[in-house]
């Protein structure tokens, strides 16, 4: 007998794992003439964890926003879950975590996490079990009545992640979510994020400036060049999940960090 868990473990390696995000020959020129992205191609399969790394202003956020359906392309084609990013089908399977926690300050933690269910019209009777589960998973069960201003930066980010995961999205887009946190909190949240991803079986596209973070989290790292943003190289991180803190001391980790740093220097 093969358990559900072991299937999920081997899925990323399987060639026929379903294609979740397809970006083909995308250019993006902003209204003021800035060419932010040029000739971008990206295929993300279910279960992958992909990091986008590159110098500031190279178009990482722009690409993520396009995949989320928050901005449009100038040329090329993007599909998410087989549909246009702005379609209901793509929207229903996507969640976004911003650099700041972007919580509603007038709502306590629980009501903040309920927001996506509320906006998507999920009937109220079904909220509690889902929200309880996700609060438990991010370790905030005891804080469900607290207001955002009463929480630390790391806890606020947990709420933001809980809110993103409450709809059980297939695709999680994260734009430098831990950029503003201290190193210890960042590492804890990194481990937590990998655990949550495994439990919920999500696919993640993650933007970061931090090479160590990218290597620790990702199965693949896409490295971008300065403006106009292009993919210059891809680094595969050859280490199986689940990964824990000891992974940071392994030769594979060091190898991938080296490769990434070298690619960035080009």
């Amino acid at each position, binding site marked *: 007998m093969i358990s559900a868990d072991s299937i999920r473990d081997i899925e990323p390696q399987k060639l026929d794992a379903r294609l979740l995000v397809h970006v083909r020959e995308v250019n993006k020129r902003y209204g003021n003439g800035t060419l932010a992205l040029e000739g971008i191609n990206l295929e993300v399969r279910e279960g992958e964890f992909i990091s986008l790394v590159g110098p500031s202003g190279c178009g990482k956020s722009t690409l993520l926003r396009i995949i989320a359906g*928050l901005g449009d392309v100038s040329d090329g084609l993007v599909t998410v879950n087989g549909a246009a990013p702005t379609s209901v089908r793509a929207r229903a399977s996507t*969640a976004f975590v*911003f650099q700041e926690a972007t919580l509603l300050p*007038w709502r306590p933690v629980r009501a903040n996490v309920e927001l996506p269910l509320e*906006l998507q019209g999920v009937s109220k009777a079904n909220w509690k079990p889902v929200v309880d589960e996700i609060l438990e998973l991010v370790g905030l069960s005891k804080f469900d009545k607290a207001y955002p201003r009463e929480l630390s930066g790391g806890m606020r980010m947990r709420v933001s992640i809980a809110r993103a995961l409450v709809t059980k999205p297939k695709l999680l887009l994260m734009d430098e979510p831990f950029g503003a946190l201290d190193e210890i909190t960042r590492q804890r949240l990194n481990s937590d994020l990998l655990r949550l991803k495994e439990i919920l079986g999500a696919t993640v596209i993650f933007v970061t400036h931090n090479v160590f973070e990218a290597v620790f989290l990702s199965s693949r790292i896409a490295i971008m060049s300065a403006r106009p943003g292009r993919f210059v190289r891809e680094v595969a991180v050859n280490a199986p999940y689940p990964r824990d803190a000891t992974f940071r001391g392994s030769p594979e980790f060091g190898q991938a960090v080296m490769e990434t740093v070298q690619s960035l220097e080009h």
Partner: protein
Amino acid sequence: MAIQKVSVLSTTSSEPSAVSKWFSKSLPPISALVVFLLLWQGIILISGLKRFVLPSPIDVVQSFIDKSPELLDAAGFTLRSSSIAFVLVILLGTIVSFVLASNKFIEKALYPYAVMLQSTPVIALAPIIIIWFGLGLGSIVVISVIIAIFAVVANTTQGLISVENNLQNLFKLYGASSNQTLLKLRLPFALPYMVTGWRIASAQVVIGSIVGEYMAGAGGGGQGGLGLVIAASSARLQTSYLFASALTSALIGVGFFLLVNFIGHLLLRNWHESAVQHEN
């Protein structure tokens, strides 16, 4: 022994009772008032100024007592016109703000006229208003609304257009309807700004009503309020009565302000910096 004494003292002083808290908060303004009144009375005794130029505090209190029926009547009317104006200012001001904030084009098209209306002296508009609405309550309320509405419009509009971009993106990502975005995002986000507008307007509607009564009050019909009392008593050089009525209108203004402050506190106390009790 000495050490024990010190520690006893410090525990009592670190937990002040409610009474002593109130006392330490009220003492400075009350003593300032007492000093002010004593100086005032003293200056009159020394300089021998005529009563109609500067009445003494005692004269003013006397006038309060003698004229209390008239003052109460007038205050009641002013309170009524201010309240009507205040409700209208909030309703109309909020609606106008939502229209202005709904669309950049509409905002650009209309905002200059809102500013123009605000900058036109009411005294220039008063004759037209009186022709249209007649002497009495109608014109008084209109004048008061014109004076006070800008504070609500400016602040509410500012709040509605300041909603953080990523919060709007969040609502877009979950397919929120425009109603949901309005009620669950823009309105609560704008609330602290709105409360600021209400606070300013609460003082301005009282001033507006008194200006309105001064220009458009109808004394015969009992629609003169404090504004007409002020006009009449100054014409007759009843200076202490003038002081008493000015003081009454100030009290109404303070009452309005405190009420709005309290409502604002109730609305924002859980989450907004302005209303939160900080523990450092």
